[in-house]
């Protein structure tokens, strides 16, 4: 079975050593059972695999215990016990994180929030949603849709990820361009601190300038400062009219021009601007197995020759207004030749289909065996250069071939939230392989640093990028972060071996 071939983190990264944490004793397990009940404590090895392994099947821990509390009080009791016995913990949401942050490295206890999944309250006037951290993002959004509101975050993993996980990862996603980051929309949090104390700012109002804004520290803390148990978030009204245009372009310059013009001419209705290179569409086609939107006349036809594709979404309150605006914009960029071809969605099902050609890339990249993901921010003019540089580098080392199965790397594909200066680079591999990893890292981080980018735009640091933070943050910044970490968690029991 393929699963057995996957090496644990401890085996794959022998330089990482287990720290001096306590070991899980039968008494500890009994105690946890007394807190959460028999059924909420997982000790069966097969059942644990689900919690030990990340969704890319790249990182695997060896925990022998997963606890699934149902209340904040239970979380507090568990964490307090861990604090007293110096037991290490990994808070786990939907386990969709892409940097190995949500799974144990050694035998850390997995604290899964999946049973804390209730909506606590919703205010129909202000749009403030209060919910348990383990609420699945899609369920939150469906609930809001019923009430005419929208969750200010959307991403490909919405069917599995938790809103608490989103906050812990400070996820950006597909609508950041429109609704801004979680640092703006999260109003309050409930967090169990590493000693079991409950920090509660769930009743915070939109405007509250009394003291330091503590909740900000937990947004993007990736489980290192405490366990988020509740989220209060401000939700915007749900747009009534949504349109999608899917375009083919001849050059990366044209992508930038289109973005600049979309911003100026679509202005307040522009809600997403995503770009995809042809290679990514080629992979998506292998995965989706249907005709590409720009080559529909022949289902067997290849993805058309345009090197770049762009997906533009508009959201507004008046369909006629948005339609007219989008049409005028598209006509003008078609006429002056910036855009070579394109389609527009005519109904909801077409709209969803068009999105799959962007959202499906992530899964498509995982089809061949594995994927090295780099999620970076770069100044727009050099953004795509990174992908070209990596392809050339892998070719120089004779590691890449789309067709030759003896090469470890299939291809490098680029796509992402260009509207936010964020590109995803997926190095699709047939197997995880140290030669490939060494060829890519730290080279890729140095390149990003040299071009004034961030080595992690939205996926965080986790286990994967812990050692590379220095490429994006100064010594002063890192020292401050370490101070904060030791202030909150002097024993270092919260999500160790990661982040800093």
């Amino acid at each position, binding site marked *: 079975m393929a699963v057995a071939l996957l090496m644990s983190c401890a085996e794959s990264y022998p330089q990482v050593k287990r720290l001096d944490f306590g070991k899980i004793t039968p008494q500890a397990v009994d105690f946890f059972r007394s807190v959460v009940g028999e059924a909420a404590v997982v000790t069966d090895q097969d059942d644990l695999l689900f919690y030990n392994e990340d969704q890319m099947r790249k990182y695997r821990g060896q925990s022998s215990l997963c606890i699934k509390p149902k209340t904040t009080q239970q979380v507090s009791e568990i964490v307090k016990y861990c604090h007293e016995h110096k037991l290490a913990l990994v808070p786990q949401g939907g386990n969709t994180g892409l940097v190995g942050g949500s799974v144990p490295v050694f035998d850390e206890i997995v604290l899964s929030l999946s049973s804390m999944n209730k909506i606590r309250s919703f205010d129909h006037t202000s749009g403030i949603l209060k919910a348990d951290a383990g609420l699945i993002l899609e369920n939150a959004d469906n609930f809001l849709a019923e009430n005419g509101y929208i969750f200010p975050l959307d991403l490909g993993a919405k069917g599995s990820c938790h809103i608490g996980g989103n906050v812990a990862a400070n996820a950006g996603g597909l609508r950041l361009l429109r609704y801004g980051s979680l640092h703006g929309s999260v109003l309050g949090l409930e967090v169990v601190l590493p000693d079991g104390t409950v920090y509660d700012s769930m009743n915070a109002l939109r405007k509250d300038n009394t003291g330091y804004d503590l909740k900000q520290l937990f947004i993007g803390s990736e489980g290192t400062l405490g366990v988020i148990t509740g989220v209060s978030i401000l939700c915007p009204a749900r747009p009534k*009219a949504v349109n999608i245009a899917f375009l083919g372009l001849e050059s990366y310059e044209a992508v930038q021009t289109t973005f600049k013009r979309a911003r100026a001419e679509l202005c307040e209705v522009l809600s997403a601007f995503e770009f995809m290179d042809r290679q990514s569409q080629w992979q998506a086609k292998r995965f989706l197995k249907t005709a590409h939107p720009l080559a529909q006349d022949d289902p067997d036809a290849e993805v058309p020759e345009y090197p770049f594709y762009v997906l533009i979404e508009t959201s507004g309150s008046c369909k006629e207004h948005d339609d007219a605006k989008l049409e005028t914009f598209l006509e003008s960029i078609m006429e002056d030749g910036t855009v070579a071809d394109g389609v527009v969605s005519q109904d909801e099902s*077409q709209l969803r289909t068009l999105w799959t050609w962007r959202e499906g890339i992530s899964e498509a990249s995982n089809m061949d065996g594995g994927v090295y993901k780099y999620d970076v921010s770069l100044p727009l003019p050099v953004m795509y250069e990174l992908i070209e540089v990596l392809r050339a580098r892998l070719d120089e080392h004779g590691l890449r071939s789309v067709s030759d199965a003896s090469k470890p790397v299939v291809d490098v594909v680029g796509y992402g939230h260009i509207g936010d200066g964020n590109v995803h680079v997926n190095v699709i591999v047939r197997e995880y392989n140290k030669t490939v990893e060494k060829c890519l890292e730290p080279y890729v981080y140095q390149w990003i640093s040299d071009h004034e980018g961030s080595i992690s735009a939205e996926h965080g640091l986790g286990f994967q990028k812990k050692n590379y933070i220095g490429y994006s943050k100064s010594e002063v910044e890192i020292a401050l972060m370490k101070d904060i970490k030791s202030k909150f968690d002097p024993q270092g029991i919260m999500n160790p071996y990661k982040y800093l």
Partner: protein
Amino acid sequence: MSSKIRILLPVKRVIDAALKPRINKAQTGVEAAGVKFSINPFDDIAVEEAIKIKNAHKDRVESIHAVSIGPNKAQDILRVALAKGADTSTLVDVKDQEVEPLQVSKILKKLQEKYNSNLIILGKQAIDDDSNQTGQMLAGLLNWPQATNASKVKLNADNTVEVEREIDGGVEVVKASLPMIITTDLRLNEPKFVTLPKMMKAKKKPLEILKVDDLGITLENRLETVKLEDPPVRQGGAKVGSVDELISKLKELKAI
């Protein structure tokens, strides 16, 4: 009659198929304010089929004329039909009035006469009222043959048309000569996206706007909607711990 084929393509504007309709407060109809409308999916299939036929028989198909009976905003879906390949179009503007299938058929008959159409392709039903009547009534009014629920359409050289229909456990093939009516089923084809260049060209294609009076018809409805109600909410299931408990639960519910 000349041997050229002139297709009439009726299309209806309905609440988008992917959305969950909501009943209005008065319980007299479905909430339409702020809701997305699109072309009826079966009509979209009809459009696709008409274009397919035209592309496959360029020399024989003289024209495709799309028609919608609905509010002024139904121009949107006519533009889509034009962008996909219809040549000309008519909107019969009835404002927000509900038009029953018999009335729709009478209007379509007038348009058939006006445009001398000899092949009418339309959806087997509209997903808003699910009447599944228009094609059939129109065939009655025109006294034309009809092939309903088409899953495959084949136009022969002698102007006969063979239509496959999915029936229980198999396929039925019917054949008739033009003029005729075909109503479309879901599996007939897969509608495509509209490309931008075609969309731009469609702007220049003719779209005539008529009132029912212009066609010498007075709308009168024969049906009155008494009340609309949501179906009862499904009760959640429950887990039982043992077979005995299951049996006693079932007895309690008088299921056994």
